[in-house]
């Protein structure tokens, strides 16, 4: 495989980076959302929710910006995927709405049923968002039917099959693990001890899912490995991914939660990089009729626009990093509940 770092490739990587940022950051708050229903009492649930309280909406901005960047850089991909996956995207939007309002509304009233209702909404929404994202990515791996005019030519139900659901569950497991590690970082005492146990269980759950999904990919979708076969050095990414995952239980048992969290973040980034290498230079693989695939070239905006956007990105990215690091630094340490908390 030959990679030339032209504008289209750079934008393919940049959007991948935005989505990795999203998966790493919103991944842990989705994970916390999936776990918080299973802690002991209302006080513990509040600690869980407030551990992500100041940062969750900033994390979601990575998705919004990723969507905007996809629209601008690869309009055909944005149009084909969003209109083709209509029902799934609408469901995703409803879940994003429920999650946002659930976290904002739940602690506004004391009533037990009120809090229970929003906690369940938050939990289900977090779970479905992770599942839907995984299913969407899986459909990019399997390929979707695309017509000669770049339009989605399949049926909605064909997007859901055992393989795509498997990848969806793997994503759920990954975010659960990531969220549990974050939870250990932000809590103390009895709750922390329990979460530490959950980290170990979720690692086992994730590794089982991951191995199964990988085997299925190798057997049924061998086109994903062509780039790795052409450039064996890329296998290092898969190796690093395994090392990062293996490092998590080690750091947890040594009480180094921050390092465990970074390992987990690294494994998410590596997983998405493996995915990106697998599909390159396609963005949406057309199955059948692979000649209709949307690639980084036939689905892209003009070079002029990609150039302008690159300048915008280069100006914006340092600020984004500065804000993100500042916010996480200010809100470092264990969660304390006060009068402004959720």
């Amino acid at each position, binding site marked *: 495989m030959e990679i030339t770092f032209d504008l289209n490739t750079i934008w393919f990587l940049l959007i991948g980076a935005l989505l990795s940022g999203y998966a790493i950051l919103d991944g842990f708050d989705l994970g916390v959302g999936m776990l918080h229903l299973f802690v002991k009492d209302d006080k513990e649930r509040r600690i869980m929710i407030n551990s992500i*309280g*100041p940062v969750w*909406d*900033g994390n*979601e*901005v990575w*998705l*919004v*910006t990723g*969507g*905007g*960047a996809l*629209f*601008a850089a*690869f*309009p*055909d991909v*944005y*149009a*084909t995927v*969003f*209109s*083709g996956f*209509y029902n799934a*995207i*609408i469901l*995703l*939007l*409803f879940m*994003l*709405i429920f999650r*946002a*309002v659930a976290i*904002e*509304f739940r602690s*506004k*009233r004391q009533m037990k049923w009120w809090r229970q209702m929003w906690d369940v909404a938050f939990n289900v929404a977090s779970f479905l968002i992770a599942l839907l994202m995984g299913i969407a990515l899986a459909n990019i791996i399997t390929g979707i039917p695309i017509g000669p005019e*770049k*339009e*989605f*030519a399949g049926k909605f139900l064909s997007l859901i099959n055992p393989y795509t659901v498997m990848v969806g569950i793997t994503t759920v497991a990954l975010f659960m693990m990531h969220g549990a590690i974050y939870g250990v970082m932000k809590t103390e005492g009895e709750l922390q001890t329990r979460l530490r146990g959950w980290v170990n269980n979720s690692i086992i759950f994730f590794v089982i899912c991951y191995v199964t999904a990988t085997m299925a990919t190798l057997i049924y979708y061998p086109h994903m490995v062509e780039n790795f076969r052409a450039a064996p050095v890329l296998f290092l990414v898969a190796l690093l991914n395994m090392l990062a995952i293996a490092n998590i239980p080690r750091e947890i048992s040594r009480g180094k939660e921050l390092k465990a969290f970074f390992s987990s973040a690294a494994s998410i980034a590596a997983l998405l990089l493996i995915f990106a290498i697998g599909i390159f230079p396609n963005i949406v693989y057309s199955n059948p009729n692979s000649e209709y695939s949307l690639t980084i070239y036939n689905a892209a*905006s*003009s070079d*002029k*626009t990609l150039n*302008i*956007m690159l300048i*915008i990105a280069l100006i*914006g990215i340092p*600020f*984004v990093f500065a*804000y*993100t690091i500042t*916010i996480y630094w*200010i*809100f470092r340490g264990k969660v304390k509940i*006060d*009068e*402004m*908390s959720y």
Partner: protein
Amino acid sequence: MDVEILARLQFAFTIAFHYIYPPLSIGLGVVMVTMEGLYLKTKNPLYEKMTKFWVKVFALTFAIGVATGIVMEFEFGTNWASYSRYVGDVFGSALAAEGIFAFFLESGFLAILVFGWDKVKPPMHFFATLMVSLGAMFSAVWIVVANSWMQTPAGFHIVGEGLNARAEITDFWELVFNPSSVDRLLHVVSGAWLAGAFLVISVAAYYLIKKRHLEFSKSSIKIALVIVCFASLFQLFTGHQSAVGINKNQPAKLAAMEAVFDDQKNAPLYLFGWVNEENQEVNFGIAIPGMLSYLIGGTQEQNVTGLNSIPEDERPPVNIVFQSYHLMVAIGFALIGISLLGIFFWWRGTLFEKKWMLWIFVFSVLGPQIANQVGWITAEVGRQPWIVYGILKTSEGISKAVESGQVLFSLIMFTIIYLFLFILFIYLLNGKIKHGPEDLDKLSSEYEHQKSLFKKA
């Protein structure tokens, strides 16, 4: 019903609902910056109490604004895929810029604004408030730039033919500063200031009527009155500028706004009326002769293009544009009246004794909300049948892969969920208002208590 009507209904409904919240965020942002700035300067704890109260309301509007805003960004792709392919090269850049320049700023510093009171020093907190407020306005900048490009496209050329035709950027700054963006941006932002500041006035007037939080409320009203007085008068200027621009760039829209059917000099300006589109006449109307020509061109001799000079399939619906436009103008003038009257009574020192004035204040919160909505209806319906004026028809923009059943179902779901959200929003807002600002003594004693705990530890 066909996909186009349903997709348009869905977009209109979701954007109208979304647009209740961002203007409140932008407007409350300015109010919070003013209040916290006064606190930093005077160290008067009253201002701190005010800021803290409005931050809580801000957080509520912001959350719903974010949730309903993501819908808008995704809806271009789900329902308007052909439009997205056609304009992505141009329009997408503005959306991406909004994400990277506005949303990160806003949501990042929001964390400090809401949760950071005890984590950072007061000047840093004020800086965060300022950044959130700026972020909200930057977001307006990019969205209005994107929408203005759809009204008065510039800085692009069409590449390809037939199904492969699309717009591509030729000059980014020409796109950003397209002929209508500056006028419309100023109009939109000051409309948002009115929405936020009148909410403050309304709540504070309610407290005064109920004889609660007197000092808090009087001070809040004074701050907000200064803002609305400036913003409502500024609206007159930006509105005028916009109308002059519309005459130049979108004659069909101006003709619909004032129901001008035949080209004419000495064109009248209607105060109100009901347009009979069949007979091409305005019933029950009162108009100032020659005023439209005068306002547009500075002379009654100014020619105004009528709808009959525009091809029949390029004319917007007339009555709905006429009504929404006239309602917006009427409310605009009413808001100027309320602001000036408020300032006058304040100057006379009798503002807080006039019960009737306080009641007007209580209901004034609806004014900017309605005016903002009907203003956008004027802008968007007045652009029809175009989705990008003169370039692409709305009917050509819809998704080809989506069927009417899917859109109908999502429209019904959006309606149910948004109604539910709106009821909850009013319920929780009402709760916050009834609860009122936190008592200062309690706050400071709590603070002292925590400080003593820290010292022990």
